[in-house]
């Protein structure tokens, strides 16, 4: 800094205070001027009458009305001897020299330091600060905590990011199926909710923690750590509705459990409690196995949440037990049994536009679906400073039975589907630190799965195809697919301050055997429908890989580059058809990610990925499989290979002080494949065969969103818009159709908090999709508007009220628009005397019993009319067990 500026500034100070006597001086240690020296002027009695500090140049000034004899000046600074001198009787410029001094100030150590008490730092929340009288579970309170949101499926997000784990006193008891925990743990048992912004459960990786995961930890109150807690709910309603549940839990240091029994027929899907909210392991994405080859019909109603549409009769036992052997070792057992009986009735009419004709068909189905599931998972974890060992063994067994009465184009038939899957999965991982910068890790996955499906159809359909035109008793489709999978890898990580390098080598193996047979029943004779309807296909996939990954992190940039290189071998063989293929190729699928901080309040994110992927057993089997009464699916193509390139660029910007946030982005995608699905569609049937034909689909999109908090209105307003366009090829009835489509979606929301007791939440969404084929004048267009208003009114005569109104509007050209208005209401009353909550729930007040919805594809409309539960009134009481 130029000295003259300082001089002028000092002069100005002098100028302003020139009315009094101004003393000035300079302090040095003999050579260098000393800054920040404390200067004190005392009178003869030792009373401080003025004080100042020396500036950067060692210069100090002070002002006194008039100097008296006996005034003393004291100069002190850390590292220098204190100097005391008499103030000269005559006004003069002072030159002060201080002597260095090694003597430090005396430490003052108090033994009774103040005890630690919680303070209000932002990453720790006290549930009591957010809980309302009507709240019971920690889930009720979590959703009110700043930055935390809980969605319909129970998934928790912190600042828009899904949490990776929900810990209870530091332990991941629920193995990330945490819904049961958020619903059952009373908020009064929780002392604090901690947000762990860089969650790293593996201790040895904490030193150079690169985790970006967010987790929540529920710190329990002392009294909640010793006693058994729980609650019981019982409810009944019309028409013939019930729900009941019991939760028991114990959270000791050595033993933690949370066990629940639940049953209901009010449309609460208990299967969601078994939903895992964490990310799948590295292996599951490579172990491709179809969930099912066969189906009996649609399982969900498009466009509506499940609670509005589900006719159920479900029961669930959910057991979660964690034993801590010591600080480093623990064993965890998660087990569940689930049964349900679901009903679904619908009729569908389908219109498919093809260049030369239009195909229309109708179907009506009455379905009864009985799913069952048993699962057990046993985890052993050793988590120490220098190593990490985890083995988890899980056994999962599921069964489903569907009875479906159907009517298609005035032909009646029965479908009966049974499916069974069993999976044994063992995952082992071990890592060890070699030095402060180097880690080595080994991981292994072994899995054995069996899938068995049987579909019975009677009477026989499409006699022209299956029985030379004469009627027959029925068809039976059998499919079996056992899968063996293994994955082993060894990896090495070298971490520096900013740069992390990971190198891995490994081996992946998958073996499958697909057997399928279509049997025809004619009279009492059961015989195979033919060689075209049979598979006996063995599939072997082997992959050797070497991958390197580089991650760079600095204040400004965050980048990663993945370079996986592998040699993939595919061998498959259908002996009876005499078809054998051995395919091997090198695959290189690089990925790049960059996030660059262009400023404190804005950043750019760039993503790019290239990938070459091959098909799987579903794309190569030769014999036709009757997927359901309408669809026959087969392949007649080499192994499909897909090449895709994806890129996206996003700009995030905020003006936090004005509470304005927005982002803008664009993405491009290009996917090409050497095979295409060829559809032969008639009024009766749909046949799909994959055949070799190079085809490409291209897409790009632009999106943006903005939100603003309106201080005066206590309201949050948000808008979001996106445009996407895509080009794709479809082969239908031997005509290659090139479709162009676009989709525009706009949405906006406004949430207002009118007072502590009353708030509203309004959302509206508009969506339009159009498709058109090049050359041929076929295409579809569909638009939809959804709006919803929610009102909350709390603490009124000990009761809380809520109401929801949802309006859906959809329109297809040439058709009458479809309009629905759903309304729900609820009251919660805190029955203090009984220490219980009483809840009254009225759902679907307008008693809408059928719901019509349209599903659009590039050249088809499917109009479905579904039976849905009508008005429902349920009263339930929940008691706490103490």
């Amino acid at each position: 800094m130029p000295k003259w500026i300082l001089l002028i500034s000092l002069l100005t100070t002098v100028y302003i205070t020139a009315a009094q006597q101004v003393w000035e001086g300079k302090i040095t240690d003999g050579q260098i001027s000393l800054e920040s020296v404390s200067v004190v002027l005392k009178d003869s009695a030792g009373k401080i009458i003025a004080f100042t500090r020396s500036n950067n140049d060692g210069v100090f000034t002070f002002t006194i009305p008039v100097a008296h004899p006996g005034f003393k000046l004291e100069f002190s600074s850390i590292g220098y001897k204190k100097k005391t001198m008499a103030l000269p009787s005559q006004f003069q410029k002072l030159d002060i020299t201080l002597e260095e001094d090694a003597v430090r100030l005396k430490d003052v150590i108090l033994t009774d330091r103040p005890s630690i008490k919680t303070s209000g730092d932002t990453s720790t929340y006290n549930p009591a600060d957010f809980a309302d009288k009507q709240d019971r579970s920690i889930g009720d309170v979590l959703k009110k905590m700043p930055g935390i949101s809980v969605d319909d499926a129970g998934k928790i997000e912190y600042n828009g990011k899904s949490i990776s784990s929900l810990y209870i006193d530091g332990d991941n008891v629920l193995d990330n199926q945490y819904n049961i925990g958020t619903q059952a743990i009373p908020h009064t048992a929780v002392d604090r909710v901690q947000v762990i912004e860089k969650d790293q459960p593996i201790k040895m990786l904490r030193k150079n923690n690169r985790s970006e995961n967010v987790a929540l930890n529920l710190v329990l109150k002392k009294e909640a750590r010793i006693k058994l807690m729980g609650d019981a709910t019982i409810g009944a309603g019309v028409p013939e509705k019930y729900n009941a549940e019991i939760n028991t839990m114990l959270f000791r240091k050595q033993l933690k459990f949370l066990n629940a029994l639940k049953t209901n027929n009010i449309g609460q899907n208990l299967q969601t409690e078994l939903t895992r909210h964490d990310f799948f392991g590295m292996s599951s994405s490579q172990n491709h196995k179809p969930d099912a080859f066969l189906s009996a019909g649609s399982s969900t109603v498009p466009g509506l949440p499940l609670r509005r549409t589900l006719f159920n009769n479900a029961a669930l036992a959910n057991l979660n037990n964690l034993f801590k052997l010591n600080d480093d070792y623990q064993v965890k057992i998660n087990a569940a049994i689930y049964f349900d009986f679901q009903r679904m009735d619908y009729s569908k009419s389908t219109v498919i536009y093809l260049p030369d004709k239009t195909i229309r068909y109708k179907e009506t189905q009455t379905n009864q679906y009985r799913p069952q599931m048993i699962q057990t998972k046993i985890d052993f974890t050793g988590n120490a400073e220098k190593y990490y060992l985890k083995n988890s063994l899980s056994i999962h067994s599921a069964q489903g039975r569907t009875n479906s009465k159907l009517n298609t184009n005035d032909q009646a038939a029965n479908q009966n589907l049974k499916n069974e899957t069993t999976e044994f999965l063992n995952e082992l991982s071990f890592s060890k630190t070699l030095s402060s910068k180097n880690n080595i890790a080994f991981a292994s996955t072994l899995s054995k799965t069996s899938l068995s499906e049987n579909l019975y159809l009677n009477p026989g359909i499409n006699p022209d195809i299956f029985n030379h035109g004469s009627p027959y008793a029925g068809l039976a489709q059998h499919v079996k697919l056992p899968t063996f999978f293994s994955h082993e890898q060894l990896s090495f990580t070298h971490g520096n301050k900013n740069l992390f390098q990971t190198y891995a080598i490994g081996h992946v193996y998958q073996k499958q055997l697909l057997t399928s047979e279509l049997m025809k029943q004619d009279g009492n004779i059961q015989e195979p429908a033919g060689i075209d309807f049979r598979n006996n296909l063995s599939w072997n996939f082997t992959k050797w890989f070497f991958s390197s990954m580089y991650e760079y992190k600095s204040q400004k940039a965050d980048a990663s580059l993945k370079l996986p290189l592998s040699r993939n071998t595919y061998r498959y063989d259908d002996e009876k058809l005499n078809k054998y293929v051995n395919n091997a190729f090198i695959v290189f699928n690089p990925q790049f990610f960059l996030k660059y901080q262009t400023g404190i309040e804005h950043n750019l994110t760039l993503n790019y990925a290239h990938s070459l992927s091959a098909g799987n057993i579903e794309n190569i089997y030769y014999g036709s499989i009757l997927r359901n009464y309408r669809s026959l699916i087969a392949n007649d193509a080499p192994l499909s290979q897909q090449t895709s390139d994806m890129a996206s660029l996003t700009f995030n910007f905020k003006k936090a002080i004005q509470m304005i946030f927005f982002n803008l982005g664009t993405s491009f995608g290009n996917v090409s494949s050497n095979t295409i699905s060829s559809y032969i569609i008639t009024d009766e049937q749909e046949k799909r065969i994959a055949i070799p034909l190079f085809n490409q689909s291209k897409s790009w999109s632009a999106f943006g969103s903005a939100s603003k908090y309106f201080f005066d209105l206590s309201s949050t307003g948000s808008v979001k818009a996106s445009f996407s366009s895509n080009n794709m090829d479809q082969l239908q009835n031997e005509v290659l159709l090139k479709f162009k489509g676009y989709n525009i979606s706009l949405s906006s929301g406004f949430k207002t908090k009118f007072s502590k007791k009353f708030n509203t939440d309004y959302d509206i969404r508009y969506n339009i999709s159009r498709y058109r084929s090049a050359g041929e004048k076929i295409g579809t267009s569909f638009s939809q508007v959804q709006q919803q208003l929610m009102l909350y009114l709390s603490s009124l005569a000990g009761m809380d009220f809520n109401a929801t109104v949802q309006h859906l509007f959809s329109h297809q050209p040439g058709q009458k628009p479809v309009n629905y208005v759903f309304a729900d209401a609820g009251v919660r009353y805190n029955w203090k005397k009984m220490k219980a909550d009483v809840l009254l729930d009225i759902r679907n007040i307008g008693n809408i019993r059928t719901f019509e919805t349209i599903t659009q594809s590039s050249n088809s409309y499917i109009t479905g009319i579904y039976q849905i539960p009508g008005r429902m009134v349920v009263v339930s009481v929940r008691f706490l067990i103490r």
Partner: protein
Amino acid sequence: MIRSLLFIYVLSIITLIGNAQNTQPVIAKALYSFTHIIDTTQPDKPHTESMVLLLGKKASVYLSLDEIKQLEALQRAFGHQIPELGGLNQIFYFPDENQLLTERMLGSSYLVQEPAYKISWTITNDTMSIEGVSCLKATARFRGRNWIAWFAPDMPFNAGPWKLHGLPGLIVSAHDDKNEVIFSFAGFENVTKATTDQPKKELKTPDGKSMPAVYNLSVIQLPEKAIRASKKEFARLEEAMKKDPHGFFQTQMAGSGSNIKTVVGKPVGASTGTKPPEFNNPIELSEN
């Protein structure tokens, strides 16, 4: 003329701050036990917190030891790491420029600049020895309260707890005349070069292994990534967050690319905070 001089004066001060606000080594730290009756209807339930004032030659920073300890506990349990500096609620004071900046967390980290002020202390002749430190008494009216401060002339620092400073010596203890806000002395330690170089008190895991420290207590540095805000702007944000915490954070989420959710789940009750005890007695009161 005066105007342009004033302009240059202001300019020079800005330049000075620019220079001074680089990293400052910590020479010593003073510890305080902070007691605050936040709810005047429940004076028996004061908020208490242990605080630390890090003292450098040209800067000081006041922050909560409890907050650091909480973060350390989190790190011990979960390997949670916060950036070396910043991300805490702390008050920076630069005596030479008479500038006070407060770092506050509210979703993001904000650096709030206080308008320059000078506390007009009246230094009395009263002396007292506090834990062996000889102190002088000074009184002042500041931000709605009558403050009584005890400062140590032998400790040549211009700083003090919270926003109190400007005495010829460290403010060792201070309280208001109603004893609603008390900063009592809890210790003073030199931070020498030797202790700075080696991590002072190493964190220990339950099995006795060492962990890196959460917060570097040996330097004073303004957080780089904090958003600068004026006192008025920040007060507006804080007010909005208090009134409608959910909406406040929803706004941030919706604009940062997350989905605008049409929540069709079970409706929940409204968020009406039943705060025990009520915060009705801030340290800073309006002058009237």
